[in-house]
């Protein structure tokens, strides 16, 4: 099975051509640096069709006809931050139950319909959003709109399905609370965002999952799933006429209701002295490390400068943390940092994991990098590299229609201006090293950060006090470090220091 003759013919022709080049081509020694190429063209981003139905549902269409695929992404503008304070996990459970039965279809009928169309249904809850996606072969266009509208508008929340999902969720929580990486993220969230609606795990706690009732689920759905808060992105092998006709037919009857009173403004936590939380997992061979500061909401004017600062410190591609911890010292497999920006709040989070004995050293190295970037301006070359990465990388972010849809959804969800992506390159290029320095001084606060370590404390106990006052929590009591199902910032103070 060595290819067919056409392939061989092409290969033979290639060989002949190659021989010519070989004789005439430059010698290897002539090349010492990669060729110089023109900078990438700026991406001129054309806003796709955005239509609004009378009930307020917004529709974004991005056509692509070379592949027989159609995907519908529905984003509802409320997620886990809208969980009732005593019932973390409600938004996720609502989303999980959407494909598990509607007024007119059982869970199995929904599964059979989507499976027969070769496709997938994907639902979940994040922060500031819940989502439901249907993706299938494009000769089932009507089914896509029919199914998605049905499960968004008419979920049944049948008692037996609730019990099934409840049981699965409890089993899953059993597993993930043994996973150091998961634990580190959840514990960090709880301390970093203490006192805000973002401080719990979107997956909930066993206690809350046991107590969520059908009434809670129905109420969450009624309050948060409405057309005026929903954006539908339609991507793939469909025309504008088909899309609007199907959207009107299946989503048109969705009744909007008056929005609730506006959400009370979130009281942002005030940075306080450093908090160090260690979860002791004696069988761990590696320690999961998180170092974080509160930062900015997505729409903050500081977003651009902080994005550049994060790019240099721990962003995608080459960065200082990776260089220091992995390339120079071989302490870790990965080291990176992220800017997580929600609608009302945000954070800068560095993460890595290292062998138990080096836990404190690796943490200190992260802190050193935070200090350095706020005391010394980044170099002109670092600035230029970060800028040209962020601008050039836009081409990759907009490669496929699904990627474009995700960018557009982000823009609409966070109420960014419609020319946001076209403005982005010049906003980034306008920054100088002083702008970046002032952002780092404002937001990277190594003395007021939250540090979480999950690992075998016995292996690094003696160095631990270098990090400051520490609270150590045995893994069996790790739930103590989870958000208590109760209101407000009281959750923070009872854990003490």
């Amino acid at each position: 099975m060595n290819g067919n003759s056409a392939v061989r013919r092409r290969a033979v022709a290639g060989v002949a051509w190659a021989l010519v080049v070989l004789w005439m081509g430059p010698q290897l020694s002539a090349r010492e640096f990669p060729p110089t190429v023109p900078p990438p063209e700026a991406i001129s981003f054309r806003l796709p069709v955005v239509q609004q139905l009378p009930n307020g549902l917004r529709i974004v269409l991005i056509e692509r006809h070379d592949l027989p695929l159609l995907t519908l992404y529905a984003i509802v503008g409320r997620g886990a931050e809208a969980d009732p304070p005593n019932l973390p996990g409600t938004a996720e459970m609502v989303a999980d139950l959407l494909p598990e039965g509607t007024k007119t279809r059982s869970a199995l009928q929904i599964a059979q319909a989507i499976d027969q169309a070769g496709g997938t249904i994907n639902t979940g809850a994040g922060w500031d959003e819940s989502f439901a996606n249907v993706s299938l072969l494009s000769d089932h266009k009507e089914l896509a709109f029919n199914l998605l509208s049905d499960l968004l508008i008419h979920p049944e929340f049948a008692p037996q399905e609730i019990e099934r999902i409840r049981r699965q969720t409890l089993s899953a929580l059993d597993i993930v609370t043994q996973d150091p990486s998961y634990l580190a993220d959840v514990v960090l969230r709880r301390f970093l965002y203490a006192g805000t609606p973002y401080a719990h795990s979107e997956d909930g706690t066993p206690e809350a999952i046991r107590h969520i009732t059908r009434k809670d689920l129905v109420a969450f759905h009624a309050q948060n799933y409405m057309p005026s808060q929903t954006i539908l992105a339609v991507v793939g092998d469909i025309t504008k006429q088909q899309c609007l006709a199907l959207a009107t037919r299946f989503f048109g009857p969705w009744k909007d209701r008056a929005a609730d009173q506006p959400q009370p403004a979130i009281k942002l936590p005030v940075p306080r002295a450093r908090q160090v939380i260690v979860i002791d997992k004696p069988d761990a061979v590696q320690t999961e490390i998180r170092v974080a500061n509160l930062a900015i909401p997505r729409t903050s004017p500081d977003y651009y400068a902080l994005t550049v600062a994060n790019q240099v410190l721990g962003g995608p591609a080459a960065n200082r943390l990776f260089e220091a911890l992995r390339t120079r010292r071989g302490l870790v497999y990965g080291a990176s940092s992220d800017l997580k920006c929600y609608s009302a709040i945000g954070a800068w989070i560095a993460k890595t994991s290292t062998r138990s004995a080096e836990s404190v050293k690796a943490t200190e190295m992260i802190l050193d990098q935070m200090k350095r970037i706020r005391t010394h301006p980044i170099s002109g070359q670092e600035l230029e590299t970060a800028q040209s990465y962020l601008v050039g990388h836009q081409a990759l972010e907009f490669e496929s229609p699904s990627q474009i849809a995700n960018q557009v959804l982000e823009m609409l969800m966070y109420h960014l201006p419609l020319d946001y992506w076209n403005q982005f390159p010049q906003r980034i290029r306008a920054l100088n090293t002083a702008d970046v320095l002032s952002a780092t001084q404002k937001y990277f606060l190594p003395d007021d950060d939250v540090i979480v370590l999950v690992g075998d404390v016995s292996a690094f106990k003696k160095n631990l006090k270098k990090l400051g006052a520490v609270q150590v929590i045995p893994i069996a009591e790790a739930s103590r470090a989870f958000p208590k199902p109760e209101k407000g910032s009281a959750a923070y103070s009872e854990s003490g220091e």
Partner: protein
Amino acid sequence: MITRSSSFWVRWLLGAIAFFFFLASGRALGAAGLPTLKIHTLELPNGLHAVMVERHDAPVVTVEVWYHVGSKDEQPGKTGFAHLFEHLMFDGTKTLGEHFSDYIVRAGGIDNAYTTDDATVFWETMPSSNLPVALWLEADRMRNLDINQGTLDNEREVVNEERRQRFDNPPYGTVIEKLYQHAFTIHPYRHLPIGSAKDLNSATLQDVKEFYDTYYVPNDATVVIVGDFSLEQAAASIKKYFAPMPRGTHSISPSIPVEPPQTAEQIVKLVQNVALPAFVEAYHIPADGTPDSYPLELVSKILSAGDSALIYRKLVYQKQLALQADSSANFSEDPNLFFVFAVMNNGRSLAEGEAAVASVLDRLKDRPPSEQELQRAKNQVFFELAQDQETSKSLAEQLGYDSVILKSPDLINTEASRFLAVTPEEVQAVMKKYFVRRNMTLLEVYPNQTGKGTLNSEGGAH
């Protein structure tokens, strides 16, 4: 198929098997509604192959360099070398020093690499004007890599951390490794690409230099380019940068022992610090691209693709025995394994789960799937194949795999028909042939709860 993507058990399960199954679904078809691709191939006198597909829908290009060396080429006592070497390829060249990634980053590109049982793959996705840069960089590290004791020692530590992070620390992280150690007796698939820490610690500079000289040569490499470029310019760049390299002088085809047929069922019991019991059944299956591989891929869809699929419906939905249940055919260059696995719900026993799986498998052995069941599976395969063409990276993956592992660069245009032609009786035939007890290794994981169980941490095979 319904996935609750933000649901953490799905994330967890995918995470646990992702490294391992990276290429498991590597397949493509090219009929009935999928575009027919113009695939251009090239072979240089030094043995380097290139496979190229032009697509101008976005100003992006992906370059992959496939070296036909993976963990199955490693000798006993030297496991993990292919993967360790993948790391060393990022540590600088004599020409450029350590500035490889500067060129990727400044262009806004991304790059990485991975190692499987069969191949080591390096890739860049870049704004398309940077194609010559990517090719130059790849040619440079194919020829001029600076291997020294310092980078070797450092990468060894990094790989040890990778091992801890991906295998030793997460729940169930070592299950697949244990399974392969038992399911294979002599074929090198019995060790995973991550290898053993002991072997890595004994790797010498001489060892890795030899590895480089043997395998990182043009006659062991295939360059794949997909995206927004001109064929003439790409071919010229390939020739300019790669043609001056001499062909390798070492033999690159070690004789790989053939795994003898399994003759008796094996049961392996593990006690681990996990919350829930789990089991994996593994059945030996033939290599990818063989006639039986097509109905077997459809079997995995009939069993577990989607919530209406047989295993999910029975174990997770109807009986609520399992938190998650799945199956997957792990096709590769040499014969590999078909997995059926489940993580039990709290309070449910492994025996209940295994009995439920047996009843599903028996049903497909006793009678062929219905036309509707089979059509569903074909639609699901077709959907995945279409998805594989969505980005330059996913398409380059396909072309590289088809060219290097299956030796059919244009398979993507014809493979659909092979799936569509599969009959219900062929599905039943592969069920009867491969899903038999004597062909199975069963691995059971018991939670290590205090006061429970006195099993050895690794019970012997029966």
